[in-house]
């Protein structure tokens, strides 16, 4: 039925979006704790910005390593 195929696609899309936003939320929380050590100011220092960016990207790198590790059982 056309309706349920459309619904399937919609549900899959929304699941993807939800997984993505959960990951962003968790990552922001973790990286905030790692990188913003002092009291928040009126803007981020360049060090803090760099730290946040690095944190996110290194987390991705780590995820790949972990995924590969579990692939090669």
């Amino acid at each position, binding site marked *: 039925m056309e309706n349920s195929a459309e619904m399937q696609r919609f549900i899959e899309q*929304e699941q993807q979006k939800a997984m993505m*936003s959960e990951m962003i939320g968790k*990552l922001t929380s973790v990286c905030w704790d790692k990188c913003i050590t002092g009291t928040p100011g009126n803007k981020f220092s360049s060090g803090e910005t760099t730290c946040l960016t690095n944190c*996110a990207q290194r987390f991705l790198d780590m995820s790949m390593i972990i995924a590969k590790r579990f692939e090669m059982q």
Partner: protein
Amino acid sequence: MWAYSPSPPNPGTDPGFITSSRDAAALHSPPPRRRIVAAGEENPLGREGLGSKKGEADMDSFSSPSMSSSGSSPNPEVLMEQIKAQLAQAYAQEFIETVGNKCFAKCVTKPGSSLSGSESSCISRCVDRYIEATGIVSRALFSNTR
């Protein structure tokens, strides 16, 4: 009142869905619990903002005359809009909870009998910074995976 419609960050297009602390404040709705919305509800966010202003009897604000009279299965588009709205609301509530925890930990180290001026301004900066951090992290993730 406000035309902003909260939704989870769209990977390709908007790195941070909340762009100002005023947006974040406008998303706040009392009792943080997940609600099941009755089908047939049109534009639940409407002009009144998220959730029910009364803060209770959630189903009342979501009932709709068209649903009770039709009796057939709900229109898929309407249902999809409702689901998207609920997801957005759940995301916003979780975001606000996280921000609250982080900023309380950073700014209110010794709770006094009221929030001092420095604590208040710290909190307001903290919320802005956290929103900015969410944007930075989103952009870092999605420019990396391209």
